[in-house]
């Protein structure tokens, strides 16, 4: 996790909030550093994490996680982390017919079905232990990323339904959190993606949006992060609080600064 981002969001692993949906989105840049942040944050906060990693392999997250101070292999072995590796599982699902329904079953199907097997997998992974003892603080579902599901044949409505079911099971029933990454296609006119992004934006409590600079590539400022706090239950009650910072990604951390205050310029 990045300590500077924790300060901006006003949280620490000890005081993590519960029952929240956090939406990460990126436009014209790569927002995966936010996924690494939340993964290490919740592992350090002693939460049980179910990570649906559809875009990169386990070793990628593990190596970056080690730079941020968590070991994914240790977390997986002791049961704190349930990791669904999309790329590796897709090969198994596609080439060999599975006996039981697999979370990525939809890869074999011709029609755009629904994501129920994936929801069942998440629910099974995050259900509380049978003996009633709370070994971990709260369950967390992390998805990287939802836009890939659209590329694999799912409709935007099917993905929104999946998130809705997960919210009911994880956020409301078990007082856990959900963090999901969606790409913003910008001017690529991806209608399905826009529907997904807008639909999730209205349901989220916290939106972190990483954007590339409008002026193009810069070596010292990699992009801009917009943080928006929302209360979905009372949409028009009071103004949502929002902050904008610029950031630079380094080898093991990310530094944030106010717009125009990059250390390279001062």
């Amino acid at each position, binding site marked *: 996790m990045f300590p500077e981002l924790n300060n901006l969001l006003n949280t620490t692993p000890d005081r993590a909030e519960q029952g929240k949906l956090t939406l990460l989105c990126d436009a014209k840049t*790569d927002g*995966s*550093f936010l996924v*690494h942040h939340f993964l290490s944050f919740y592992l350090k906060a002693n939460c049980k994490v179910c990570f649906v990693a559809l875009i990169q*392999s386990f*070793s*990628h997250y593990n*190596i*970056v996680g080690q*730079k941020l101070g968590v070991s994914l292999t240790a977390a997986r072995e002791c049961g704190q982390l349930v990791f669904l590796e*999309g*790329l*590796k*599982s*897709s*090969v198994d699902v*596609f*080439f060999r017919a599975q006996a039981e329904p697999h979370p990525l079953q939809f*890869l*074999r*199907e*011709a*029609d755009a079905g629904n994501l129920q097997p994936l929801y069942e997998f998440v629910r099974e992974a995050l259900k509380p232990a049978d003996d009633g003892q709370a070994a971990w603080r709260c369950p967390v579902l992390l998805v990287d990323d939802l*836009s*890939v599901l*659209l*590329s*694999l*044949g799912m409709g935007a409505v099917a993905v929104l339904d999946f998130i809705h079911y997960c919210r009911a099971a994880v956020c409301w029933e078990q007082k856990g959190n959900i963090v999901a990454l969606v*790409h913003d*296609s910008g*001017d*690529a*006119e*991806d*209608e*399905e*993606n826009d529907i997904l992004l807008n639909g999730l934006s209205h349901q989220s409590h916290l939106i972190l949006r990483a954007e590339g600079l409008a002026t*193009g*590539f810069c*070596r010292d400022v990699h992009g801009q992060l917009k943080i928006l706090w929302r209360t979905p239950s009372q949409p028009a009650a009071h103004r949502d609080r929002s902050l904008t910072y610029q950031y630079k*990604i*380094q*080898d*093991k951390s*990310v530094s944030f600064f106010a717009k125009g205050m990059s250390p390279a310029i001062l």
Partner: protein
Amino acid sequence: MAAAATCGTSAGNKGCTAAAAAAAGGKNNVTSFQRKGPRASVPDSGCARLVSIAGTRPSVRNGQLLVSTGLPALDQLLGGGLAVGTVLLIEEDKYNIYSSLLFKYFLAEGVINGHTLLVASAKEDPADILQELPAPLLDDNCKKDFDEDVGNHKTPESNIKMKIAWRYQLLPKMEPGPVSSSRFGHYYDLSKRMPQELIETSKWHGFFFPEKLSPTLNIEPCSLTHGYIKLLQFIQNVIYEEGFDGSNPQKKQKNILRIGIQNLGSPLWGDDICCTENCDNSHSLTKFLYVLRGLLRTSLSACIITMPTHLIQNKAIIARVTNLSDTVVGLESFIGSERETNPLYKDYHGLIHIRQIPRLNNLIYDVSDVKDLAFKLKRKLFTIEFGGETFPNVKI
């Protein structure tokens, strides 16, 4: 400073400036430098210890295994080379001239390094593609011709000991020219064909789509076009049979599989994304790329795909394809455009756009500062230089 630069290429060689200075000092016996560690030998030996597969080297930044794309200028732009297990997507130029050239460079590099090749095409027979590979430029031939090309004349004093800059005498001469076949990345002569004996000794598998069409479909429909399903099964079969993913107990493979897929997405593969904007199976190509990447990540292989993105009507599909690939490079040739007669571009054949570079095992990645890059093709050299309206021409 230059010593540190060459030592930097052998991964993690700390204190090399001190060692090199000590070695140089030891030669002349007039300095008081004390040698701290073992004598620094040729900088490349550090690489040799870590690399066990021919034609690969670990990345300086994160130890990722890299292979050369066949074009040393492109290797430099991509941070040292193409990472094993990833996809390089080339967005074709309008007449598919330079993209098929990059495709051939990639395959030729595989032949030179002894890698296994898998060539898939719906347009040309893979055997014909392999016959047309360019000949490599090795140390022992064509050196004189190459020097004429670049205008780089070897001075007769180059063998004389340097009197003032004696420390630099130990460094290998930095030449942009032809290199021996044990190095990473080679140069090719487009006017000559790859020698027949090299092609015959290389191991390759060909997938020519018109030959693989079978009248009956014995697999359940899953929204991928027939061609893509067949290609995926073929690739998976080769990876498993030859042991590139380590799962076959009989085969212990310590080689790289280079996969080349030509014109993916074109109507010749049975896909209609280049024909209409609202196509029937718009997810066919993206699903193919996803499963392909899954296959690559779990095996010792690297893949180059050329795709006619300028023909794809639906911009959303191009964005999705970019997100599903690791490295994306776009080529734009000046043929037939108004830039051909623009005096700024008169030395160049086209522009090269680096659209995406992956951040593998890392939060950051190597990226060049300048984004306006132009390429020009001479008979024996494909150079990429900083061109464009705002920057002066500086050779990389």
